[in-house]
């Protein structure tokens, strides 16, 4: 239930081996953008993916690196990448020691990427590659995270319905600012991915989590990729997992710091209901009806004890929050005018290396100038 904060930039503690070292770039040279590709289930051919998505970045004059983070079952799939890297392409591949899931792969990739702007790209093609430079420009203009929405869509009504349902469930938490959490293509400042603790399936909801953390989140439209248009019907278990994810997200968003409000609401209701049953039965006993013949008494006691259990669990939650409080701050500071103070972190969107070529080609407006 508790999210660990104050994580250092090292990423999760998982054994990672770097398989391909970049040969093109000098070690000291910082790329403009790192594209992180977590490779878990059913990836598209990775070399083609790289060639397709790196092209618009190169055309925009951006200095990029692709960071593939791979689970061991995909070891064979990265072989073509090695050939590309030997030919001088900016590809780095990291292999994780065991199956860890996409959230951990993302955090590992973020910790090892070198650019200040990150683009997260699923290992299967979701949107048209032309969207990538635009994502970068949005970050350059000051957004903390930019989600890519598949629009116009080409796929079947069934897929759209699935997206719509998921979106409706999540809409309340994202204030309507994110309309396609499923696309999985996002750009963000490096800090965002390093500071939001991801685990389990929460990588899907990264834009929503970023909104909760107070980051400036925007969304752009990009045409859906043709290969994403297959109708997908998952097993019922997958839908159940999504539903549970959304429920967990709601709970964490509302009650991370006040678990007793949630458990107490449930428990209090049950205790009152059970108590009422018992009172009614007691009054009837006074009127002469023997209690031992009333199965309703069992129900009353059962509901009452369930309520007590819920409240007790809420109290455990409060103990956890209380004893974790010194190490976590329930807020995020955006700016502090006493900036010489050692505590201070002033986030300035305009400290990235300018990519004039990118802006010139895409025709985006210039980045914000730094103010003191």
């Amino acid at each position, binding site marked *: 239930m508790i999210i660990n904060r104050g994580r250092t930039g090292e990423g999760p503690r998982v054994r990672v081996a770097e398989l391909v070292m970049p040969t093109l770039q000098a070690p000291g040279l910082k790329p403009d953008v790192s594209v992180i590709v977590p490779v878990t289930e059913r990836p598209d051919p990775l070399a083609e993916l790289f060639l397709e998505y790196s092209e618009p970045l190169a055309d925009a004059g951006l200095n990029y690196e692709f960071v593939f983070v791979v689970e061991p079952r995909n070891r064979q799939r990265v072989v073509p990448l090695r050939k590309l890297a030997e030919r001088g392409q900016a590809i780095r591949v990291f292999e994780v020691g065991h199956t860890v899931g996409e959230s951990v792969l993302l955090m590992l990739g973020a910790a090892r990427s070198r650019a200040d702007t990150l683009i997260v790209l699923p290992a299967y093609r979701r949107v048209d590659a032309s969207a990538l430079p635009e994502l970068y420009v949005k970050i350059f203009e000051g957004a903390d995270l930019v989600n890519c929405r598949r629009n116009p869509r080409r796929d079947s009504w069934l897929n759209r319905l699935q997206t719509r349902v998921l979106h409706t469930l999540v809409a309340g938490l994202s204030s309507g600012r994110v309309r396609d959490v499923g696309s999985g293509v996002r750009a963000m400042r490096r800090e965002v991915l390093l500071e939001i603790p991801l685990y389990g399936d929460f990588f899907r909801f990264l834009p929503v989590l970023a909104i909760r*953390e*107070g*980051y400036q989140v925007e969304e752009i439209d990009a045409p859906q990729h043709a290969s994403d248009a297959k109708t997908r019907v998952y097993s019922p278990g997958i839908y159940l997992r999504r539903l549970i994810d959304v429920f967990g997200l709601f709970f964490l968003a509302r009650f991370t*710091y*006040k678990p*007793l*409000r949630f458990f*107490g*609401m449930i428990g209090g209701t049950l205790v009152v209901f059970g108590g009422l049953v018992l009172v009614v039965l007691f009054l009837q006993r006074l009127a002469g009806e023997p*209690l*031992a*013949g*009333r*199965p309703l*008494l*069992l129900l009353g*006691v*059962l509901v009452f*004890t369930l309520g*007590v*259990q819920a*409240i*007790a*669990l809420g*109290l*455990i939650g*409060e*103990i*956890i*929050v*209380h*004893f*974790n*409080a*010194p*190490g976590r*701050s*329930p*807020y*995020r*500071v*955006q*700016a*502090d*005018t*006493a900036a*010489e*103070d050692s*505590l*201070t972190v002033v986030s300035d969107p305009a400290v990235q290396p300018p990519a004039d070529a990118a802006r010139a080609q895409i025709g985006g407006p210039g980045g914000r100038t730094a103010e003191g």
Partner: protein
Amino acid sequence: MKSTIRLSVVVPLFNECENVSHLIGAVRAVLGEGQDWELVLVDDGSTDCTCELIESEVRVDARIRLIRLARNYGQTAAMQAAFDRARGQVIVSMDGDLQNDPADIPLLLARLDEGFDLVVGYRVHRKDRLLTRKLPSWVANRLIGMITGVQIRDNGCSLKAYRRELLDRVHLYSDMHRFIPALAVSTAGARVSEIPVRHHARRFGESKYGLSRIWKVASDLLALKMLSSFRERPLLMFGLGALGASMLALLSIALTTLTFDRGVSAPSSYGYVYPSIALVWLSLAFFLLLLGLVAEVVISGGRSTGEMSLPVVREWT
């Protein structure tokens, strides 16, 4: 620079555009021209001109400081942000809506110097509506005093003065800003004193409180009660609960034997109601005992070590 600041006045602000200039002026008038204080204004995600106004003040007076939070987090988080970043040896908190009078700050400081860790103001001649503001607050203060054992006349008054050593030991979360004195006494061993302070009616802007907080206060109070009574020994609390449930189970068993004697000609459900109830109570007792053990694990694992986790101590001189 850090060592020269003696006093930090911290004010959480949310959409207080009309008040902020008056506030800064009033604080400056009271604290004077010296450089040994700072006014820490925490902007809790305001959407009006609050920030712009403060920024223009910061440019002309370095003693004024603006901390902008990334979004609206609520008063507790805003105060904790201010406490975490305030540099003074003494910290004074107050409301941003001019209901507190900065002229009371020197009185708070004088009382703090008499050997207290926390000085709490209580509003005399409160200028609020009786039915929706004063009455609920009177009931709440009595209730808080009764439950936590820390009698404070006015928990809702933001005007308080704290020593740095105390704030290093008190961490606010949820909506705990209402219970700072109780939390400070029960977890950090603070010595608390109260003084009367002035109260002005809200001149500009809208009140951000409503009656809807009653349920929240009740839930927070329950948590606070547990923390103040059983913070060091949660197993005792859960154990007492388990004991109570076991007694009820015993009672049900006793009733079982009673009803068994005359159950020969009774309807069929007579035989199982009481034994089943005994089992339900027993399972609750078992569950609570296990939860108590979980709580012990949490505390032994989550407790931070070192001086900061212990109460404030002052040596006699």
